[in-house]
């Protein structure tokens, strides 16, 4: 077991390292930030002076070496735009992103699991068909459009909810709904099919035959057994919610990590992009690492492989 954990741990570090390397070079390919920061009337010499000051005129491998050397010590440099510590800027935004992701995830689970269970139990009933239909719609509607639709309805027309921003729990309702929409659809479908698998198995039939009431049958025997794959999906989705809430954060002016990275990308604020990608890669890796360890603990076969 320890071997397995150590191996997975180093694999995780390798992943983060490779992600940072790829993003570092991709960012440099996208161009030089100088023209975006200096006034348009800056002269050639002034531009070169700025590039020199920022170290952008040095060979790429030197810049890369320096970046990695500092990054290992947790120093991603200062934002070119705000001159604040890049990593700190990202960490400052992390609670807002976490909050939204957690709320959306909980909401999605609260709706999706009962819905999936009922759909599977009443398979092919009208309830089931409506639920399946809704999940298809839920997965098909783009987040961007969904967000604008909700803003239009609840903020512009009904005027009962703020159109965006952060500050009170009320501000969270619309972005949470938007973000939860897709996950709910995904979880519902997954729960339904996992339940269907389990419900057809022999031990359920035996339990039913021995007179186990419906509720314990579903909760104790069926749902419990279909939870493991659902947990994996939830873990993956949490990573996605944390890193991929960019569009929701922009539409709802939510001051989170996704929006920060998007803005940094548009202004080529290299240090902030790299710090942001680092944090998201790290979260993703840690969640996956934990999922792997739990799996290995639950199922010894995985350890051997």
């Amino acid at each position, binding site marked *: 077991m320890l071997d397995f954990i150590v191996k997975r741990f180093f694999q995780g570090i390798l992943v983060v390292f490779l992600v940072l390397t790829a993003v570092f070079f991709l960012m440099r390919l996208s161009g030089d930030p100088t023209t975006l920061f200096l006034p*348009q009337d800056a002269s050639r010499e002034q531009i070169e002076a700025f590039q020199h000051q920022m170290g952008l005129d040095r060979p790429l491998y030197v810049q890369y070496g320096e970046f990695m050397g500092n990054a290992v010590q947790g120093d991603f440099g200062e934002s070119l735009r705000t001159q604040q510590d890049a990593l700190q800027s990202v960490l400052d935004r992390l609670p807002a992103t976490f909050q939204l992701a957690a709320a959306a995830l909980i909401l999605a689970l609260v709706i999706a699991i009962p819905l999936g269970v009922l759909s599977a139990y009443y398979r092919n009933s009208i309830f089931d068909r409506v639920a399946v239909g809704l999940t298809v719609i839920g997965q098909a509607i783009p987040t961007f459009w969904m967000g604008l639709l909700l803003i239009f309805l609840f903020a512009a027309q009904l005027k009962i909810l703020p159109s965006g921003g952060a500050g009170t729990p009320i501000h969270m309702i619309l972005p949470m709904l938007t973000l939860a929409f897709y996950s709910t659809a995904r979880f519902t479908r997954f729960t339904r099919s996992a339940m269907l698998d389990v419900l057809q198995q022999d031990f359920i039939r035996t339990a039913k035959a021995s007179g186990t009431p419906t509720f314990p049958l579903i909760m104790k025997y069926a749902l419990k057994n279909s939870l493991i794959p659902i947990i994996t999906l939830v873990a993956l989705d949490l990573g996605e919610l944390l890193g991929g809430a960019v569009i929701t954060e922009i539409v709802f002016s939510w001051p989170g990590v996704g929006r920060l990275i998007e803005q940094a990308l548009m202004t080529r604020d290299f240090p902030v992009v790299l710090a942001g990608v680092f944090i998201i890669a790290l979260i993703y890796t840690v969640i996956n690492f934990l999922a792997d360890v739990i799996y290995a603990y639950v199922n010894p076969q995985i350890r051997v492989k």
Partner: protein
Amino acid sequence: MKKMFFLALLSMMFFVLAACTEETAGGEDSGGEGSGDGGDSKDSIVIGFESDAATLMANTDVNYVTDAQIRNIYEPLIERDIETKDYVPNLAESWENIDELTWRFQLKEGVTFHNGAEFNADAVKFSIDYILDESNQSFYRSRWVDIEEVTVISPYEIEITTSRPFPDLMERITEDLLIMEPGYVEDVGNDTAANEPVGTGPYQFVEWSRDNHLKLEAYDDYWKGEPEIKNVEFRYIPEFSSRLSAFLSGEVDLFKNIPVDSVAEIENDDNSKIGEASSSRINYVALNTFHDGPLQDQKVRQAINYAVDVDSLLENVLNGYGTKITGPLSPVNSGYVETEDYGYDPDKAVELIEEAGYTPEEISLTLETPSGRYPMDNQVAQAIAAQLGEIGIQVDVSVNEWGNHLERIQNREMGDMFILGWGPAFEQQGTIGNLFTEDAPYSSFHDEEIDQEIYDANGTFDPDDRFDAYAELQRKLVEQAVWVPLWQQADLYAVRSDLDFEPRVDERIVIYDMSWE
């Protein structure tokens, strides 16, 4: 049994929902109910912006969004009268030119900073030295490198010496320089001062939540008198549709940069109106003469000027929002003289191309444009391509990401033509001197004779001679058809109908001048 099951499910849902609200309530600390009350309480205003200020430190970030906000906190020495375009005293009471290298400024007495400190010559010296100090990484520094020294003569008198004649100094002081409180910045350090600014302006800092909002309140001891609007919130809403919704729902009272195709929606709303100003920012099509090709021929450039129907573009693509220009400067510019309009004459265009030894069909050009940076830029490019296509010139339009567009210009990698805007452009040198020399790629035009004339005009210190030199240059540049001048942008604002707000030609958001009816 089924009932039991449903009850259990329901109670589970409630339990988790309760946990959810607890979580959401627990994590938030800022603000309280700052939003949604734009309607009734008429001593506050909420202004929407597409992005946050990069920093609240003065004299650091050259960026409209940053500048528009912090100018309500900090003040300049000199302002510009937006009607006459003259320099008018603000924190400086008067100024004089001792000689070509020396300037002296008399400062206003009795002005205090928000922390109570007195405004004086030390503050001016500190603010200019701040720009010049490389370690502060001010993006303004490149414009101020000709300053040699700033000397405090007396508490309310300051002298600036330049390393070479620098007639542009007045413009730099008006456009760039904002006065900071030296004692405060030295006490708390740059990092804190950049987050909690102290100035002499009509509004003082309350709270800044990055990417969320900036809140200010009226500074009661403001030397021009207490502001009418007491509480100000700048709210950051990156997505236009969200910004528009926030405005229409009454959460936001004012925001700038309405696309021309959204004007009707705002005009049709009972509580809203459109504010319009003819900006000093001009849009143009650059004709690249850095590479070999037909555009190096003056006649071909003139032909393109004849073949592009600017009036039609204005009317059909921009719905009339914009003011046509015919030369390198707009009438807002203090050095403007009227120049001849090429007008629309496709026959003349074909004639000129043939005189130059080409047929229109032989000429194939590229036209690059950003998308969304200037009003309808992409659509304008398509329409220009179609107009040139009518006389037989083939034009390929390509759209660049903004950063890439700028970089291609800067690295002189641009193809034949490109669309760009320039501004704020209030004086001649900032436009002509920066655009039509070999050093400056933003029009990608250069001609040795014109280079020399620009250089001479820049060095001319006497205001009348300078005006004449630039007037002559404007005529020459038009004759040379150095670019296709398009228009002054129309700045369009969404404004709450009972807000007294006059859009300014310099794009500034001066809340001190605003009031509720």
